[in-house]
């Protein structure tokens, strides 16, 4: 038995289901019943009840890809800032030196190896140092929307702007493209996704926005040519 409507926002403490086995992310169990742990949109996903947050802090989980900034290099580990409130640790063998010659201030794209009471640890094999691009931040809760279903949104952005994207679950994104027009179009599209994350037909609107941005750039160039 479920006690929610998928279109209606739930508040913390709201009863969602009777069966404690149905408790998914964003819910908690008390006395055999499932309640919402934060405000958001309730969904039945893979047989469990989840509450999709509309806003909120990032909780690292093993397997998440993140974008971080190196804040400290120690003899056998590197500290990585995950957007202001959390530091992750990347361990490496001492005799090899820091991977890819990382120093303080470098931006990396890496995978979370484990996250528990001992801290957040990153996978050192799959780490990538990002050498150029623009780093921007958005609400971590809306990153899934930016990626889209099976990566559809990010694929669209890639196609339309010609930029490369490294999207971190922690809310940091690196955009790197050949032209500054492409990059600024990509950033404005990301801002639209962040603002309108939970509205209908978002993909179409983003596509239209990118098309018009492209057209505008094109027109500008033509006019510039004529003036010359």
């Amino acid at each position, binding site marked *: 038995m479920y006690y929610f409507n998928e279109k*209606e*926002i739930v*508040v*913390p*403490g*709201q*009863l969602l289901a009777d069966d404690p086995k149905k408790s998914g992310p*964003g819910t*908690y169990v*008390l006395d055999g019943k499932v*309640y919402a*742990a*934060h*405000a*958001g*949109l309730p969904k039945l996903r893979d047989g469990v009840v989840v509450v999709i*947050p*509309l*806003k*909120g*802090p990032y*909780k690292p989980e093993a397997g998440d890809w993140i974008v971080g900034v190196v804040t400290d290099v120690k003899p056998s580990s590197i500290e990585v800032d995950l957007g*202001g*409130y*959390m*530091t992750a640790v990347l361990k490496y063998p001492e005799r090899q030196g820091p991977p890819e010659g990382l120093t303080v201030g470098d931006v990396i794209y890496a995978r979370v190896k484990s996250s528990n*009471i001992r*801290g957040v640890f990153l996978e050192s094999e799959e780490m990538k140092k990002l050498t150029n691009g623009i780093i921007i931040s958005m609400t971590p*809760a809306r990153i899934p929307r930016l990626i889209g279903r099976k990566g559809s949104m990010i694929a669209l952005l890639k196609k339309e702007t010609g930029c490369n994207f490294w999207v971190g679950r922690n809310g940091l994104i690196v955009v790197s493209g050949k032209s500054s027009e492409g990059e600024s179009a990509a950033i404005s599209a990301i801002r639209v996704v962040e*603002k*309108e*994350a*939970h*509205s209908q037909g978002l993909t179409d609107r983003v596509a239209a926005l990118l098309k018009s941005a492209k057209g505008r750039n094109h027109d500008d160039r033509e006019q510039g040519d004529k003036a010359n």
Partner: protein
Amino acid sequence: MMTESKEIKLIDEEGRRVDGRKPDELRPIRIEAGVLEKSDGSAYIEVGRTKIFAAVFGPREVHPKHLELPDRAVLNCRYHMASFSVDERKPLGMTRREIELSKVLREALETVVFLEEFPRTMIDVFVEVIQADGGTRTAGITAASLALADAGIPMSDLIAATAVGKVAGTLVLDINDIEDKYGEADMPVAMTPRRNSIVLLQLNGRMTSEELKKALEMASQGIKKIYQLQIEALKKRYSVVSLEE
């Protein structure tokens, strides 16, 4: 003021209170969530002439570092009254009363927030009283819990609070400043409305055990009404997000 106090009739012949309310009537309440741009979560509450902002920051890095806990987040709470919030200018800085109320508010909020989800971090809650007319701690905690929910911090329930007082021998709900000053008792109560558990209970003055029971019942009725307003504010806040076109 002292000569005036003897003339003040806290309950008139018709059973109405100084501001014309019935004994079990709340003051007009306005609650809003997400009012401050720079904070992670915020709320504003108006209870009669009492006006309070609450802002939440975090989870973020613990400062000073030695307060960090390895297994859960640290909840830091600051209740503060603006200098201009009371009749006579309040000197700057935290008074003894404000430090105590910060602690009381923190202990109440700690019971609902899932602090163990964010080890080694700190959640800051700021409760700023802009205008005070009695019931600031209860209104403050109501706003603070809403600000936490607005910040998306996991919690088991919201907290709503109100005070019950005894003036001229009658129990009255949601007492204001005059009733607090010249009444016989003041009892702030904070509850988690869904499970009806009391997270804050103080009593200043005297009540018989029957009166206390009745006062708790009155408070719980008032809290239910405040809770509905909290839910409304939270849903309104998020429906703006989801309907933005």
